[in-house]
C-alpha cells in the first residue's frame, strides 16, 4: 500500500531539514551534480528526482531542464557521506552523477540552495 503524494510532501521536508542540519555543522558542504547525456529520457530523469528526492514535479522538471540545457545541475547538497550516498543511488538509476566540494565548483554554482536559476 502506498500513498505517494503524501509521502512526497513529507520527504521534501525531511530532505530540507537534514540538509540544513548538515550545513550548520562545521562541515564543508558537498554538491551532487547530475550531468547531461544523450540517452537518459527527460521524463525518467524527472521521475527519479521526484521519487528519490521527493521533489515536486515543478522543481524536478526545472532541475531536469537545467541538466539538459546547461549540461549539468546541482540537485542536492549536504555532508560528504550523504551526498556520496545520493550519488550511488543515482548510479543505480543510471543517471550520470558526481560529487564535488561546494567551493571547488568552477562555475560559481557551489553554494547553498542547489537549484538556482
Amino acid at each position: 500500500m502506498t500513498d505517494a503524494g503524501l509521502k512526497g510532501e513529507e520527504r521534501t521536508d525531511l530532505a530540507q531539514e537534514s540538509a540544513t542540519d548538515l550545513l550548520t555543522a562545521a562541515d564543508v558542504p558537498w554538491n551532487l551534480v547530475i550531468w547531461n547525456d544523450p540517452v537518459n529520457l527527460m521524463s525518467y530523469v524527472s521521475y527519479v528526482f521526484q521519487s528519490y528526492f521527493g521533489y515536486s514535479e515543478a522543481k524536478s522538471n526545472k532541475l531536469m531542464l537545467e541538466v539538459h540545457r546547461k549540461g549539468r545541475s546541482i540537485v542536492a547538497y549536504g555532508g560528504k557521506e550523504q551526498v556520496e550516498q545520493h550519488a550511488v543511488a543515482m548510479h543505480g538509476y543510471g543517471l550520470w552523477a558526481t560529487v564535488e566540494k561546494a567551493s571547488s565548483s568552477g562555475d560559481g554554482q557551489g553554494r547553498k540552495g542547489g537549484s538556482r536559476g
Partner: protein
Amino acid sequence: METAKDGRAVRVAKAFKYGLKGITGYLEPTERELLRGLVDDVISMLEPQSSADEDPLTALIGLDMNVREPSDRALLRLLPNVMKNDGAASLEFRQLTERSLRETKIGALRATAMGLDRNDLVLTPEEARLWSMAFNDVRLVLAERLDIRDEADADHVHAMQDWSQADDVESYLALVYNFTTWLQESLVQAMMASMDRKG
C-alpha cells in the same frame, strides 16, 4: 537527454498504461524474448569476477579491494566515477561501493527478466520502478554500442524506424534501441500517472 519519439519500430507491443489494475502492458513472445536477451547480456556484464586472491572477509562486507575503473565504455557508463577529476578518490569509493551497486543493478535486471514470462503484464509500483531502471541500463549499453555521444547521434539513431531497413547489425541495434526507448518512455509516463492519481 532525449525526448522519446514514437515507437514505430515495433507495432505489436502496447504502451504501458496506468488504470484500475495498476500499471499494465502487453508484449508479444518475440518481444519478450528480445528484451530478456538484452537484460541477460547486461546482467553478465555486471556480474563481478571473483578473483582467487580475494579476502573472504572484505568480500563478505561488500568491499572489493581489487576493483579497477572499467575499461569497457559501456560498463564505465553503468558504473561511473564518483568524482570528475580525481581518479584516486573515485577508485577508493569504487572499492567501497561498486559491488553493492552491481548487485542493485543485477537485482533490478533479474526482476525484469523474471517478469517477462507472460504477454499481459501487470506491474506493482516497485516492479515498475525496477523495470524502468533495467530498461535504462539496457539503453545505456546499447547506446555505447551504437556510439551515441551527443544529441545529433541520438537523432540519427532515432531516424531509423523501419524494420525492413534492418540489413546490418548497426541498423538492427538502432531499431532495438528505439523500441526499448519507446517502452521505457511509456512505462515512465504510466508511473507518473500513478503518482498523480495517488497524490
